[in-house]
């Protein structure tokens, strides 16, 4: 089952494409990190997936081919928007009551228990809570709906490190215990590196990389060798070249079994390193199936 499936998806605001030619199939059962710099189109993609926006081009479906915003899609997806909008003049108890009234399922007992554990009084008004408490309340409301897919847009932007840790712990618990698929966006990969097992990397309105983290790491190597011989490695797809004085570091698409040119060393790559390399090279892409840009001529970035 795919929780989100897009083909040729595009969204234009005025004359600007916030998202274009996005084709994507995110399988269920993952914690998906949607990463990219500000303005990369992450929020646009999420808004399209939860039915808050309509596509300008292409199509998107959720939860096995359902149109976003349809009753079944709304029922199965819980969305926590950026800055966790809540009704500021309502208390936590009122927010629970309101969400219960607006949904077919609502696990009141677990929601109350969670707020109790978090030390958020039920009578506290949402507007009087700290950023962390508001985010936790929003997450509690979302989880109590027992969704199949939890979508979080920049959930940790306003949180301090401790609150981030608690927040992610709650998300991962839900993913592990209930099998909820999670799709969360951030412009900081480091936030998600340890929790995500599926990566979608976006920049400038396009999807650059999409795949399971383990597969991505297994299919990329860093090659280190003499700078003068960097062209020797040109027979395999090079994502990115970093040239120091005498040594060159190349990120290439290769597995551990691929042969290495003489005089070169191969190392496994870290997720953050991989993501940064792709973001620096917007022409490069690593997508399931044939993807444009794989053979693009890498430009040199010297340091």
């Amino acid at each position, binding site marked *: 089952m795919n929780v989100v499936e897009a083909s040729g998806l595009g*969204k234009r605001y005025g004359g600007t494409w916030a998202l274009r030619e996005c084709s994507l199939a995110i399988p269920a059962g993952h914690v998906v990190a949607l990463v990219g710099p500000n303005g990369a189109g992450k929020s646009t993609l999420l*808004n399209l997936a*939860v*039915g*808050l*926006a*309509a596509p300008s081009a292409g199509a998107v479906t959720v939860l096995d081919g359902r149109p976003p*915003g349809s*009753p*079944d899609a*709304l*029922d*199965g*997806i*819980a*969305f926590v*928007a950026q*800055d966790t*909008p*809540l*009704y*500021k003049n*309502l208390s936590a108890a*009122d927010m629970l*009551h*309101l*969400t219960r*009234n*607006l*949904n*077919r*399922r609502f*696990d009141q007992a*677990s929601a109350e*228990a*969670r707020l109790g*554990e978090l030390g958020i009084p039920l009578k506290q008004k949402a507007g009087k809570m700290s950023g962390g408490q508001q985010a936790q309340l*929003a997450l509690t409301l979302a*989880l109590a*709906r*027992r969704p*199949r897919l939890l979508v979080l847009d920049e959930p940790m932007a306003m949180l301090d490190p401790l609150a981030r840790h608690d927040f992610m*712990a*709650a998300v991962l*618990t*839900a993913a592990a*215990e*209930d*099998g909820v698929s999670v799709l969360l966006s951030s412009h900081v990969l480091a936030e998600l590196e340890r929790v995500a097992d599926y990566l979608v990397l976006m920049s400038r309105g396009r999807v650059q990389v999409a795949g399971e983290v383990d597969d991505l790491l297994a299919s990329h190597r860093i090659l280190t060798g003499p700078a003068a011989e960097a062209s020797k490695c040109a027979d395999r797809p090079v994502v990115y070249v970093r040239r120091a004085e005498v040594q060159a570091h190349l990120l290439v698409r290769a597995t551990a079994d691929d042969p290495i040119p003489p005089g070169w060393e191969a190392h496994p790559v870290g997720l953050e390193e991989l993501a940064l390399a792709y973001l620096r090279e917007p022409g490069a892409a690593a997508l399931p199936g044939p993807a444009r840009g794989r053979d693009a001529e890498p430009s040199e970035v010297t340091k």
Partner: protein
Amino acid sequence: MTALAVPARPVQDASLRPVPWRRMAWVTWRQHRFALTGVATLLGVLAVCLWIVGLQLHHAYAAALACHRSGSIACEGLIGNFNGMNKVLSNGSVLQAVPALIGAFVGAPVLARELETGTFRFAWTQGFGRWRWTLAKLVALAVVVVAAAGALSVLISWYYQPYFAAGNETLSLSEVSPFAAGLFDLRGVALAAWTLAAFAIGALAGTLIRRVVPAIIVTLAVYAGLALAAGIFLRKHYLTPLVTSKLNLPETAWITSQWGTKGGKFAFAGRAPINLLEQFCPPSAVGPGKPSEATFARCLGHHGYTLWTSYQPASRFWPFQWIEGGWLLALSLLLIATTVLLVHRRGT
């Protein structure tokens, strides 16, 4: 961490019934209780004022009616007392603000606040569904404000009743045309209909403008424009006016235009021009004292002129009420439907 595990996930299937409409009642009340309490307070205060002053008014009317030896100084005093109370509430123009305020402060924020604060992203991604959410809220609030306005207009009708009683004129008591500007739209079904229209204008303005304060201002402006246009241009054309050459129309008739003819040909519009009066009806011809319009008309009649008056008789009050209520209801439904459609279709 909390154990969120459940034994079995509920079966998802395409035929799941939607969340029941009635669940929105609590949501709507919880989110709009301050606005609704405000409306209740405003209308409550107005109702108490109308009740207190209205009782005095009815007493004054009863006293003036019961006064024997009409023409005596005592009776003149009682009549003057009753007639003078007409000025309370400035002939109803104070109450004209009621629909506008309800529209602006209840109607405009319904969607504007959600859009301004971003909470629509919460509300519209819940299982209830966004167009159902919009429709449920608007209908629930509309029913409440219309019912409140309807109740107030019953009280207002009672309050002004003495001024509309037939026969006041012969007793030299104030008698007001039921079409009087500022009173017509407070009685019958008009107040409720105007309140609904103001609410619908507010809801649509809020959806389009997406900010609370500008939406309130625009709602007030649009409502005022519509109310003025209806009163000045529209209302007198609801039914074809009656035309008469009679000179003693009751004071309650709504005169829409006057003109004169001579020998079947148009002679002048409006009142008889001064030069005509000077020519045919000098003071010597009409007798001493300040001549009335009827005197002039009679005088001109002797010279072959006929004065025509087109008017709406007071008996058309209810047809006019239903016509005004009807088009306002149609307009309101159109505006509410547009709002729901905009929300349904909107890409953020």
